């Protein structure tokens, strides 16, 4: 379990990182916290010739509260975002969901944008971004940046809309809407495991946005009417995601969780109070 040889680069600017990406194409991989990539390298599931470490790029290290969103730069770790003062007011869903990401040790290294870039279908941050309708900001070597909506960014298992010569510079999480409630529920085998099913909800007075992670090949969010009986809509959602059996859970179980936990989450209940506090450790 030793990686194949690679050249290690530590670009000091976005431009330099993008130049390197352009130059080395598919032979290069970006690394920030390395919480997924290092395992992949060690198991030789990828043997890139170049590793571009963006941790040294100073101006990627920021969390900014702007008019309608919280911007998180590509250098920010998950632990830093979780400790951001006022996170629970600014983006309550993140405050609920992030304690479920791995363990505090992995959150100390893993970055927010790294998780978005990796696009694991079970990961919490892509689910939050998709449910909130956030955006990903990418930049290329010409300094040109583009913004992509979360639903267009995530394209499949570990697959995103990022082009080979682009660097994700930040992600934008929309700020809490007045009057909206934010809820999160996850079922995993152990604390910190990949979600079997993760559900995130934004509940407004007349509508609900429900996000589902761990089931389809990417995080999915749907809008449902608030006051109608959600059973049918939840059943349709459950069946629409192409749930699969794996070693830990069956497809039918996943669908059932979407139906039953989805209903609980929309209704709100004691468990949501518990959740808000239980996994803060």
């Amino acid at each position, binding site marked *: 379990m030793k990686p194949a040889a690679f050249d290690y680069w530590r670009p000091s600017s976005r431009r330099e990182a993008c130049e390197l990406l352009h130059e080395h194409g598919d032979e290069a991989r970006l690394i920030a916290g390395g919480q997924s990539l290092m395992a992949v390298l060690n198991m030789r599931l990828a043997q890139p010739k170049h590793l571009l470490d963006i941790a040294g790029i100073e101006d990627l290290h920021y969390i900014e509260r702007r008019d309608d969103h919280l911007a998180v730069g590509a250098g920010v770790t998950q632990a830093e975002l979780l400790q951001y003062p006022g996170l629970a007011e600014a983006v309550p869903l993140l405050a609920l969901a992030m304690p479920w990401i791995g363990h505090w040790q992995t959150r100390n290294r893993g970055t927010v944008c790294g998780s978005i870039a990796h696009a694991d279908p079970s990961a919490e941050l892509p689910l939050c971004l998709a449910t909130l309708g956030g955006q990903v900001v990418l930049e290329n070597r010409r300094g040109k940046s583009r913004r992509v909506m979360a639903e267009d960014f995530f394209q499949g298992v570990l697959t995103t809309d990022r082009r080979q010569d682009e660097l994700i510079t930040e992600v934008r999480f929309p700020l809490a809407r007045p009057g909206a409630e934010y809820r999160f529920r996850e079922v995993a085998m152990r604390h910190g495991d990949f979600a079997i099913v993760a559900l995130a909800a934004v509940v407004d007075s007349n509508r609900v946005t429900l996000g589902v992670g761990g089931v389809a090949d990417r995080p999915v969010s749907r*809008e449902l009417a608030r006051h109608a009986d959600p059973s049918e809509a939840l059943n349709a959602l459950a069946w629409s995601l192409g749930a699969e059996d794996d070693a830990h859970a069956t497809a039918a179980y996943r669908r059932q969780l979407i139906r039953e936990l989805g209903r609980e989450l929309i209704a709100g209940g004691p468990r949501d109070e518990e959740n808000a506090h239980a996994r803060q450790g």
Partner: protein
Amino acid sequence: MNAFEPALREGQSGQIGRRQPRIEDDALLQGRGRYADDLAVAPGTLHAAVLRSPHAHARLVGLDASPALAMPGVHAVLTGEDVKRWARPFPVGVRQPMEHWCLAVDKVRYVGEPLAVVMAESRYLAEDALDAIRVDYQTLPVAVDTEAAIAADAPLLHEAVGSNVVSERHFRYGDPEQAFAEAEHRVALKVRVPRSSCTPMECYVVLAEYDPASASYDVLANFQGPYALHTVMARALKVPGNRFRLRTPPDSGGSFGIKQGVFPYVVMMGLAARKAGAPVKWVEDRLEHLQGASSATNRMTEIEAAVTRDGRVTALYWDQVDDCGAYLRAPEPATFYRMHGNLTGAYAIRHLVVRNRVALTNKTPTGLNRGFGGPQIYFALERLMQRIAVELDLDPLEVIRRNLVPSGSFPYRAAAGALLDSGDYPAAVEQGIHEGGLEELLAHRETARREGRLYGIGYTVAVEPSISNMGYITTAMTPEERRKAGPKNGAVSTATISVGPLGDVSAHVSSTPQGQGHRTVVAQVIAEVLGVPLESISVNVELDTGKDAWSIASGNYSSRFSGAVAGAVYQAAVKVRDRLAGIAAAQWQVEASRIRFAEGQVIVNDSELSMPFGRLAGATHWAPGTLPEDEPGGLRETAFWSPPQLEAPDDDDRINSSLCYGFIFDYCGVEVDRITGQVRLDRYVTLHDAGRLLNPDLVDGQVRGAFAQGLGAALMEEFTYGDDGSFQSGTFADYLVPTSVEVPEPLILHRETPSPFTPLGAKGVGEGNNMSTPVCIANAVADALGIADIELPLTPSKVRTLIGIEEPARPQGVGEDQTAPAAGGGSRLTASDSVTLPGSPQAVFDTLLDPETLQAIIPGCHALELTGENAYRADVTVGVGMIRARFDAQVALSDLDPPHGLRLSGAGTSAMGSAEGSAQIRLTEVEGGQTRLDYDYDAAVGGKVASVGGRMLQSASRMIIGQIFARLAQRMGGAAPRLSLWQRLKGLFAGRGGRS
């Protein structure tokens, strides 16, 4: 015999039985442990990496290591050819024409089976070279499921045996036929115990040298014993025992039985060092470990009880099949026979029929694993007791009580031969009930159920065997075969104590501890006997077969330390004490019985006479001339101890398989979440009678550790295999071990009934909860859900399925679920899809047959070379996200039926594993001069990628296969392919707030 009486403590240190903190911990907590990987290696040591099979079953057609040898830093490659020249297959416990070599020589029989070893200047270079070795496999049908493997038409692992059942024995004790005939009730159950492992933190490490001058091997490995395997290794290496020196490091990062399984690698790396002409170091990585190191034996059991109206079990019928994986590796089939004498558990059941079959399958070979043989027995027996209570409408605790071995009947000879040494089982159960608060728990269940919650209570009693009879394994042979082979029995343990010229006490034991704190307890025992301060005693637990006292029973297994090894330490200490007492008595002209040893002094009772221990002991070195005539001088005593109760199996197959039998009474309360199926352990009570406790802190530590592993086995741990034999639990994200967050603190209760058979009255206690906890939790879940069929691990998905999932129908048009994944989440994927293409079916057909098209539509195809009619060799890089693998692939078009259809198939291997698949393509003309292409595909991946990527494999395969046909559509006319499933789904949910 138990010679130690606490009454003798008067005037002594009281060390035995004290809660003494471990003397090992200072170093370990400061990172100063000396594990095998920390030890200095000889200059010029090469690093080894092992090439492993990605296939579960394949014939080895060819292996070419020359490209690897040409790589920089690579010194040598050991292959099956070398092994055939220099070694022999490992001896096994049953007589069958099958061979297990340390490297595959003709076939590979499980995913992860070693094929070759690369020796290079670094592990990095060695792993680089692994990818360069070219192996030609001819894959064979697999036998993976145990039940399927023993069917008459199953593919055979070892053809010469003629069956995958390599051992079958029938046993009969008492008069079971009559008992069943007279039974008022018969209660039967069929259960399966899955594969799991106790997964030590430190994996295998081997440092090997070969000395051509003396034709001898010198190997250091974190091997845990039993040292009976030293003979197995020496025979495989074709050297006498004294030309194979095996050493162990000072510290070990855990074993739990697993490091018994390092022995094939000891032989392999010895041969590797010989091939390289240099010392070789190998450190197993986690993927290698989970995939190929060892596993507990999975078992299928049919069990039936003859039961009286009031719940008294008069006879048992056992029909068991053990699945030992691809090879019967020593000491298998010991999973059966370690527990054979005590098959009736803690119960007085006199009549017994047993049928034991050992099956081989295309899975990792099995071996020792903490609790060895116990979880399999108790899962069947204690689930059955719970079923008896349910079916007869009795209280499960009452059924247990009515069947326990009665008080006052010890030592008790169980039906199959176990001599249960001591205890009072009924009293222990009552103690557990009162001290554990059962009343409260029962009330809690009442309340919970009234509130509509799913709450259950489970009970288990068990006897915990310790100090294995080295002869038990011969129960696998018929009495006839045993007579021919000669008797095997006993269990010799050894300890050596020496006192230096300055009066300093050193001890050596051949117990190879794996983290349990043996040094602490050895020092406690010596301090007790010699009256010297604990911290002054130096205990060495490294074992060197070239220099130390050892025997075949040496090592760390069957919980033998406290009963056997500490007992031998006691005996050696008594020998030293008695010699010193004799010397002191002569000097002072007093009776030796008046001499006692305490607080570093040698004292004559009822007198003023005393001298420092060191001065008296030093005299044996400095002034041997002053010693009594029969005193030889110097001070080093070795004790060898073997208990007479460990006899060979008798002609009726009765076997006292262990010397000691502790008693366990567990109960627990669980609550099951109705929606998620998650099992929350509310309370767990575990009572142990392990004889005299030498250090209760260490005992509690053992109980906690075994409990955590038992809980893991109950709720989450399982080695899973695909139907094709692919291994699916290659990382700790796939093989789930409970962390401290998931493990509640059990209430631990003790009771001490000394064993009459061990020198200190102690018994083993390290494995009990591995045996009792899984079934105790299972019984509680069965009680909560009111169901009979419980299979471990009780994952949320499985439990929720047991509760019942009544799915509302799939709404019309939603999520045409096109994938039909293999049962059990296999790595095989079958699915169908279609695309609409411009042009006629004939045009599409012709395009597909064009090599240029083929190269263009296969994602990541760098080169395509014609190798036969419609057959190609392709160099393909396949990737998803950050993951990439370069495959050397065969691609073929077959079943040509122009213009209606054809089959496109491919198979390849890469550093990441193997992949194969084929798609049956049908072409149909549709409106507008277009063609609809329907395809059904079937794909499978094996090797590393299946082991570590299971969670995403299906989606990833679907994505890659989908790309082929999307590219075909583009090539046919640049038309956009039909909307993907995904896009169609998105369309279903219109009105998405303006973002769609």
